[in-house]
């Protein structure tokens, strides 16, 4: 399998891939599967009734990494895909996903991924998803991921969702259910600029006793961009949940942060912290006094903040 330069660059950016990776892999290019490999412990099977796959990690699998990036280089395309990830009992794996769009035309490119994660008891998953868009055309780069996560007893998922550049429009919807002693940590990092618009709606249900969940969001809005972050924690048992959103607002951007706590059990402990603010003048002055220009100081602060 050879990738052209645009494809190779997108794959490198979203999944840190140089060529074809080891282990199980599924690379989707322009609406169709381009490369698919299973490993002895990780099976990737195409869905029969709709585009997408079922990825099944055998119980007890340890330390494997799967890459499942999607790239779009043809404009005027709306790619819709349904993927199911099943993590077997006591497995411990990493999944690197991500979507990169190159669009230099006047037509929109859109990818809507519908992802379902099913974690069996005591399994552990680290999931990393990067969104990235490039290309100078008028056509918009649109991403609308919908994700549902089922976390069984004692299972753990750490999700890291990153969107740093080039995506014009994104609406992310994530619904999580956590059973007894399950644990979820969701980290979102977002930077918007120009006229970009990004929304994230998270609903985290902590259904089982001893369950815990965290939603952490760090974002920067520049120029005329707009962001909406809505995270609801619903505690239905003796559980712990925390939402934190921290944003830097610049120029003429707008940010709406709406943390919501719903407790349906007297032993649920739910907390939230939200902060939106400009870069502090003192921070800029400090870095400038070390020789950076104002612009370099701003870039350094943002880069650190989103790291």
């Amino acid at each position, binding site marked *: 399998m050879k990738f052209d330069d645009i494809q190779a660059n997108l794959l490198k950016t979203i999944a840190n891939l140089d060529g074809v990776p080891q282990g199980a892999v599924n690379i989707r290019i322009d609406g169709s599967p381009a490369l698919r490999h299973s490993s002895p412990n990780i099976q990737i099977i195409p869905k029969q009734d709709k585009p997408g796959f079922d990825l099944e990690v055998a119980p007890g699998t340890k330390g494997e990494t799967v890459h499942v990036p999607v790239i779009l280089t043809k404009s005027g395309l709306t790619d819709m895909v349904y993927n199911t990830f099943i993590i077997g009992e006591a497995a411990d794996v990493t999944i690197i996903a991500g979507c990169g769009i190159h669009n230099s035309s006047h037509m929109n490119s859109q990818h809507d991924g519908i992802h379902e994660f099913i974690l069996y008891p005591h399994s552990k998953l680290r999931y990393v998803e990067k969104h990235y868009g490039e290309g100078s055309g008028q056509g918009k780069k649109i991403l609308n991921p919908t994700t549902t996560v089922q976390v069984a007893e004692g299972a753990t998922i750490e999700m890291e969702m990153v969107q740093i550049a080039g995506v014009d429009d994104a609406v992310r919807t994530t619904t999580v259910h956590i059973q007894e002693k399950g644990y979820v940590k969701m980290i979102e990092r977002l930077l918007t600029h120009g006229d970009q618009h990004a929304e994230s709606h998270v609903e985290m249900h902590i259904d089982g006793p001893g369950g815990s969940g965290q939603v952490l969001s760090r974002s920067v809005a520049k120029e005329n961009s707009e962001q909406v972050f809505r995270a609801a924690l619903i505690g239905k048992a003796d559980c712990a949940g925390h939402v934190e959103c*921290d944003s830097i607002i610049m120029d003429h951007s707008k940010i709406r942060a709406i943390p919501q706590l719903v407790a349906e059990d007297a032993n649920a402990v739910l907390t939230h912290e939200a902060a939106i603010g400009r870069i502090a003048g003192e921070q800029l*002055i400090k870095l400038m006094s*070390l*020789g950076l220009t104002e612009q370099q100081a701003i870039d350094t602060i943002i880069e*650190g*903040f989103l790291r």
Partner: protein
Amino acid sequence: MLRLENLTMVVENNQGENREIIRDINAEFEAGKVYGITGPNGGGKTSLAKLIMGIYMPSQGRIYLQDQDITPLSISERARLGIIYAFQQPPRFKGLTVKDLLNIARPGIDNLHLRSTLRDVGLCPEDYMDRDVGPGLSGGEMKRIEMAQTLAREAVISIMDEPEAGVDLWTIQKLIAVIVGKYKKNPRLTTIIITHNENMLHICDEVLVLESGMLVHRGTPEKIWPHIRDEIECKMKEQCSGEVAYEIR
């Protein structure tokens, strides 16, 4: 050499009235010397340092660095010409590490230098190098990291604003030794230490006393210290209506 000429800074207070917080200051700071600036709280020490760094702009007067008029220059430009100011209250950065800041202070700093700099301010490199300079650090730790940046930069003009504040006694002794070893003996560098600490003042070649925005005394620490002592005693007497609460040696 740094020279201040008729430096004055006026600010507007809440009532909209003008107030001079720095009043007609003339001073020279030579290379190869360590200067101390002291004086009562609110005397204008930090404001003077910020004027030199370009953080504040004077209402009148000029600032010269090696005979170049730097009064119109920005903070970044002055930094690049060789001025650094270690903040009295250093700001915090979420996501930037100690190592990041030292790398900015001294681009391309090698690992050995980085570690020795941290040790100079009493921080164990292993524990601190990758720490976030965010809300997780104590006030004293922030001050030491601020000093580490100043040491790493080795600027021609270093201004340290109360480097000992909030720092434990053991580290103060260490800092004093480092300042003596690194700055006092270097004929290229000018060091200005704003301090309330007697031991710090005693390593200075010259001490300046700022009060109400004015330079009221200037001289060797041996000459200046008795003045300061007497004045503290006078103030005590005033405040305690003649009753001296405790003796000052």
